């Protein structure tokens, strides 16, 4: 489980969460062609296809399954496909609503209609690779240039082969409004004591220090992640996510004690508040800080223009503040693609700076994974995200990407109950441990 030790090389970028819309869009391509090429090029298994790294040999039809249902990411992916230099490959993009796509990923993987699928790095990629549902793209990785060791680790499954091509990422940090900080004379804290005194200053100014929103029960997972990594360190966090520590462990208990002591600085009623409402509270100055992915800026243009962030400061000097959540997005190939040759060429293309520049031209909210990408067009948030991630000593993918999805859901429930009544923490943790044992046994 500790294969994913890391620092990320190069410049990555924040992808988006809230994708709504409900339709399956076909952007490009001929359905008839798809059928023809299946006969023409197929031969499925990767053993049969020698990948040389040259783009231009393959032909036929290729289908990408995508969860990029928001306009900007959708246009971004279309731009990537547009920049694909192999004109002989007819690429079709199947876009599904974000949530629908994720809930049905199992079926999509087995249906075999889409050769290349948008997905997440780390555990959630490895989870399918271990079940034999994904195609080995180690030979593509042999040709990759400009992706750091952190990306390689996040793309490698238990068998030591690569099953993922990372294209972008975003970081989780403490977001704030520049104008509010300037107006009140606040400054970014560099350790937890400064953070607490900043929070006290805000409280005495009549500002709630932290936005707290947990509708859907995933946003505050970020708070747990960062506290655990600050208090117990990156390795412990990843091992805990991998099911290798008990949740009733004193070290986990400490995280919740610290969290409890911070709760009075947070908004009440978090469980019924959406992250967008939380972002609005940051924008209006009702609250001073918001621990969330940098996608918070996408809630409104005014916030995007006024938002800045700082890395969650260190709690234990022995551990430091080098670890953070920086979820990586990218693409994977199904186990038996209809057109493996074209799929590999496209995946290699997606790893290049050219493709990522094309993506960022449509969706500037994200940071590219390739170190050769054009950073001169980055806005301040992108530059800061990239710098933060490249200086990180440990990158985690966010709780719901770092452990079995079922178990992540149980953690989400537990956190939600904890913030309602922190006094129940011990019984909540022993329940969670019981469920962990049961759920991990299902997948062993």
């Amino acid at each position, binding site marked *: 489980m500790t294969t994913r030790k890391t620092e990320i090389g190069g410049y990555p970028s924040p992808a988006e969460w809230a994708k709504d819309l409900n339709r399956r869009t076909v952007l490009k391509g001929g359905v008839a062609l798809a059928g023809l090429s299946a006969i023409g090029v197929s031969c499925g298994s990767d053993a049969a296809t020698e990948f040389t790294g040259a783009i231009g040999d393959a032909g036929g039809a290729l289908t990408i399954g995508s969860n990029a249902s928001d306009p900007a990411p959708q246009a971004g992916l279309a731009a990537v496909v547009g920049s694909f230099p192999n004109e002989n490959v007819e690429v079709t993009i199947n876009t599904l609503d974000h949530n629908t796509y994720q809930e049905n990923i*199992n079926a999509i993987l087995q249906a075999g209609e889409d050769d290349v699928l948008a997905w997440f790095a780390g555990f959630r990629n490895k989870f399918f690779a271990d079940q034999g549902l994904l195609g080995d793209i180690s030979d593509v990785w042999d040709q990759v240039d400009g992706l750091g060791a952190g990306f390689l680790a996040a793309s490698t499954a238990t068998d030591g082969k690569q099953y993922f091509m990372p294209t972008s990422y975003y970081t989780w940090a403490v977001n704030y409004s520049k104008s509010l900080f300037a107006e009140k004379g606040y400054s970014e804290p560099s350790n937890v004591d400064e953070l607490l005194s900043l929070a006290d200053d805000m409280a005495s100014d009549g500002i709630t220090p932290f936005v707290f929103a947990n509708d859907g029960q995933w946003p505050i997972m970020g708070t747990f992640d960062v506290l655990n990594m600050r208090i117990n360190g990156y390795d412990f966090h990843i091992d805990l996510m991998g099911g290798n520590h008990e949740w009733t462990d004193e070290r986990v208990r400490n995280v919740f004690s610290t969290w409890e002591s911070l709760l009075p600085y947070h908004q009440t009623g978090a469980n019924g508040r959406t992250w967008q409402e939380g972002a609005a509270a940051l924008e209006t100055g009702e609250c001073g800080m918001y621990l969330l992915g940098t996608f918070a800026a996408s809630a409104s243009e005014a916030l995007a223009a006024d938002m800045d962030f700082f890395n969650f400061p260190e709690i234990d000097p022995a551990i430091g503040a080098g670890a953070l959540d920086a979820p990586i997005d990218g693409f994977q190939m199904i186990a038996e693609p209809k057109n493996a040759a074209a799929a590999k060429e496209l995946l290699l293309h997606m790893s290049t700076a050219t493709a990522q520049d094309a993506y960022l031209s449509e969706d500037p909210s994200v940071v590219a994974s390739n170190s050769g990408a054009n950073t001169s067009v980055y806005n301040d948030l992108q530059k800061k995200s990239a710098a933060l991630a490249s200086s990180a000593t440990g990158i985690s993918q966010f709780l719901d990407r770092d452990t079995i999805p079922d178990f992540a859901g149980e953690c989400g429930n537990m956190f939600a109950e904890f913030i309602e009544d922190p006094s129940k923490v011990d019984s909540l943790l022993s329940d969670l441990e019981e469920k962990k044992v049961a759920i991990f046994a299902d997948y062993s």
Partner: protein
Amino acid sequence: MSLDESVTATDHDVTTPVTSHEREEGRRSHSLLTGSDRRTLTLMTAVPSFLHIALVWIPAIGTFILSFTNWNGVRWSSLKWVGFRNYEQLFTVFEKDLYESLFNNLWVMVALFFLGTPLGMLIAYILDRNLKGSAIYQSIFYTPVVLSLAVVGFIWRSVIYSPGQGILNSVLGRTEPGNQIDWLGNPDFLIPITSEYGLSKNFMALIAAMIWVHVGYVMVLYLAGLKSVDPNLREAAAIDGANEWQVFRQVIFPAMKPVNIVIMVITVITSLRVFDIIDVLNNPIGTDVLSILVTDNILGESGNVGRGSAYGVMLLLVCFGFAIIYLRNAFGEED
């Protein structure tokens, strides 16, 4: 009346007059079934039977069988038989989820039965008095039933219950940071049963949304029933000196028995299969119901078909209970 009887009756109409010899008639009408009649008959029984078996029995039995497995739904080869392990875990590891869901399903039933359904009936009764603008009121009350669930979710989450921007908190003057009411997120008990189980405040908020839909549905059904009640009954009762309540209680309500039964069945079914509104409101903590547990386990990227099926069997057992009560009543009446 069975299928056979109806077919025979039709044969009488189209063929010769009935003879006095019953035995002869029976034989003849049998022989009068033409080839196409037989085909029709076969199709009319075979197609529904096939659909029923394929869509109801096979999935139900399949669910039952799968509840004894550990399977991620991907490949048959990864299916493992685990005996009663899933059930055991339901009552030892996941017992809070299970009991909470059973309670919540029960709360929905109680709320719809004592609040939603009577309210729908009352509205129907009032609208039946040929009020001015009755059609407009009917449309308004019925609107929630026809709205898309995405819209229903938006209305309740963002327009009504939103802590900072919602109508409810604005009307109640609870918009200040710190005194906002967290309608959908607060799992404290409104009606505690034990220290761990009870009717939570946020689930009551969800029930309000369910009632909102249910009232319109019941209203339309009841209104249709009321139109068919002979107005003379009402007049006669009034002449006998019965007041409004007595007329309803003693005359209209008993006359509406068939509609009442339909509405009762719908109320029970709705409360057992409730899923949609909870799901569109993002299933806050403390608001699980059985159908949510089933889908959460079976769907999703790490599908746990075995455990989800075990929850499904629990739901099936609860439904059986109500089906037996209903059938016993329904057949009891005919005797």
